[in-house]
């Protein structure tokens, strides 16, 4: 038996799963080129037609069992298997080359996949999963090694796959699946969203895991830390069983908080909202007991070959606004540049992209493009409570200029008789140190501030956190960062505007106490962090939090601050401990 092995990925759905690995095949499209004797060629073709009709029957059944969008997808899959041109070409090739149909079919499908997969347009790249799906289904019949179908799982398993397609998850016997691990994917991929809605742990981006796992291997999946442990030792197993039991009790406590407001025992109310980047995630906010959307990142809309038009953007923003009902939705205008590549603006390669043309700078240099987004946001504001937020603002001039473009967009809409919320709130991200320092001058210009601690930390401390040589210096609990945060809150409140925080720091329960004490009106965190932060808020008197904030601001080192806050958390919320472990 091979030894325990640990693989890191991205935790996208919290919880711990312990169970056997169910490996979904990886290379189902590769079949060796087997030479077929002349008198067997027609049998080979017959075998192909049989495999096609079996696959079609399965698809028809899947289609009839599903509705709406998914129904349409399976319908299109069926058509692919009835495509006269495609099938004729394959049969012709089998006859001419006298090679096994599995090999030729697999190659043709791979060809389509690599063609579509190489396109810049995300929507077409997304089709790859559909075609792979259809291809592997037929291959399973051709090779006679039909992969153990997820619909007939007999025991509880953790599904391990290169990637999961909608048809994989649609036919899964969900009560048997206790976790997902995939090699591809991010926070907003299909696997991640599905796992969170099923409330089972999931880790994505676990590269090369399929090559490491054997079917039936024991696995531990930690959906919080993103860790996957293959063939755990008895000690590890015991440790994780305890963690799992503690987590289960803890989850129970948290779920009781779902419908309660984020309010301290002495009555201080905080808006606990969520940061999201896919419109589907808006559904998760309510499920996790959050209030509104504190930060809707719009970059993903623009990371593709053709820029989205006003109508498409409007549709996406409206979807989020509708999901949030009468809770606020803060839409951040696009923050491209930095590490987010943009082919549309011919940005010359910058030596220092994080100090380059990103965020509001790029938008102000491309007014027409910027105005399209503002018009779309304004139109969505007619449907609910929408706020506009500008990223990367460094001074008053930029805010005035950006507001000028908002005014132009409003004028245009009025002229066209298109509805929008005249009182729409306009605010800025405070993430450039100069903006934090000038908070008292910026406050009269806007309706709100939202502090972006990730960038504020990196810019304030001059630390690139992905640079391994200096990443140890990256610490949002640095006295300088906390002083800036505190100063921004005070400046905002003096001018009567609300101040929120949408960086990762807000999701750290230890830091949350100090942030609460500094008087932040809103904390926006990832949907999955909402319950634990709500627990902290509901369990900490505001008067205590204020004292903590004061003390923290007097501590001189980041280590000292972290120790102090973590000690406090351990004392007051021992139940939060299982979340962080070896």
């Amino acid at each position: 038996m091979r030894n325990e092995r640990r693989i890191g990925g991205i935790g996208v759905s919290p919880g711990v799963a312990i169970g056997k690995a169910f490996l979904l095949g990886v290379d189902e499209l590769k079949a060796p080129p087997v030479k077929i004797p002349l008198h067997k060629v027609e049998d080979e073709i017959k075998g192909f037609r049989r495999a096609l009709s079996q696959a079609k029957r399965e698809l028809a059944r899947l289609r009839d069992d599903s509705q709406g969008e998914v129904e349409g997808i399976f319908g299109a899959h069926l058509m692919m298997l009835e495509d006269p041109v495609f099938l004729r070409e394959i049969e012709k090739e089998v006859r001419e080359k006298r090679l096994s149909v599995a090999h030729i079919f697999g190659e043709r499908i791979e060809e389509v996949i690599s063609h579509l997969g190489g396109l810049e347009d995300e929507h077409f790249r997304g089709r790859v999963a559909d075609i792979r799906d259809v291809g592997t289904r037929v291959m399973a019949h051709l090779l006679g090694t039909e992969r153990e179908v997820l619909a007939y799982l007999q025991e509880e398993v953790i599904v391990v796959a290169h990637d999961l397609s909608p048809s994989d998850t649609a036919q899964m016997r969900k009560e048997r699946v206790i976790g997902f691990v995939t090699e591809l994917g991010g926070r907003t991929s299909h696997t991640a969203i599905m796992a969170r809605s099923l409330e089972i742990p999931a880790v994505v981006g676990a590269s090369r895991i399929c090559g490491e796992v054997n079917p039936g291997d024991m696995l531990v999946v930690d959906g919080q830390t993103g860790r996957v442990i293959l063939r755990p030792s008895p000690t590890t197993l015991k440790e994780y069983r305890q963690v799992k039991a503690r987590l289960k009790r803890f989850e129970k406590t948290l779920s009781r908080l779902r419908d309660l407001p984020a309010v301290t025992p002495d009555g201080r109310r905080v808006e606990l909202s969520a940061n999201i980047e896919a419109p589907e995630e808006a559904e998760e906010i309510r499920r996790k007991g959050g209030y509104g959307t504190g930060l809707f990142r719009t970059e993903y809309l623009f990371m593709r070959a053709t820029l989205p038009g006003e109508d498409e953007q409007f549709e996406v923003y409206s979807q989020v606004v509708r999901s949030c009902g009468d809770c606020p939705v803060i839409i951040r205008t696009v923050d491209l540049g930095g590490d987010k590549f943009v082919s549309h603006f011919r940005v010359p390669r910058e030596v220092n992209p994080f100090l380059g043309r990103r965020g509001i700078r790029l938008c102000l240099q491309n007014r027409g493009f910027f105005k399209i987004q503002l018009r779309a946001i304004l139109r969505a504001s007619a449907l609910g409570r929408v706020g506009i937020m500008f990223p990367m603002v460094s001074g008053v001039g930029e805010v005035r200029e950006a507001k000028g473009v908002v005014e132009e967009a409003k004028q245009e809409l009025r002229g066209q008789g298109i509805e929008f919320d005249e009182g729409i709130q306009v605010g800025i991200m405070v993430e450039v140190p100069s903006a934090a320092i000038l908070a008292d001058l910026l406050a009269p210009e806007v309706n709100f501030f939202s502090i972006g601690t990730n960038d504020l930390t990196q810019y304030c401390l001059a630390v690139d956190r992905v640079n391994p040589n200096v990443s140890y210096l990256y610490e949002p609990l640095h006295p300088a960062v906390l002083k800036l945060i505190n100063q921004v809150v005070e400046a905002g409140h003096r001018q009567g505007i609300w101040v929120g925080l949408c960086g990762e720091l807000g999701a750290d329960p230890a830091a949350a106490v100090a942030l609460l004490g500094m008087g932040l009106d809103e904390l926006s965190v990832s949907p999955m962090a909402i319950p634990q932060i709500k627990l902290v808020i509901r369990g900490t008197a505001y008067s205590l939090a204020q004292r903590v904030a004061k003390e923290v601001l007097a501590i001189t080192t980041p280590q000292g601050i972290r120790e102090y806050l973590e000690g406090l958390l351990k004392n007051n919320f021992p139940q939060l401990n299982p979340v962080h472990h070896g």
Partner: protein
Amino acid sequence: MEEATITILNKLGIHVRPAALIVQLASKFESEIKLNKDGVEVDAKSIMGVMMLAAGMGSKLKITAEGRDEKEAVAALGDLVEAKFNEE
């Protein structure tokens, strides 16, 4: 032979569902129907072919049809694209 050039108007371009609609419609006609985008030509009755075109919003598509019902075929396909595949 009948031909027309049209612009894809729906925001997601010819993804799976529109491709399926094109093929369904094209298959109702007897004529041979081709779609051409930037010099790449495919059979409008082949869903794999139509998807391989990867025609995004704003791309131009030439429809050509040859046969007894070529006029009707080109007109019907043009209408479908113009109606944005009834998506929006």
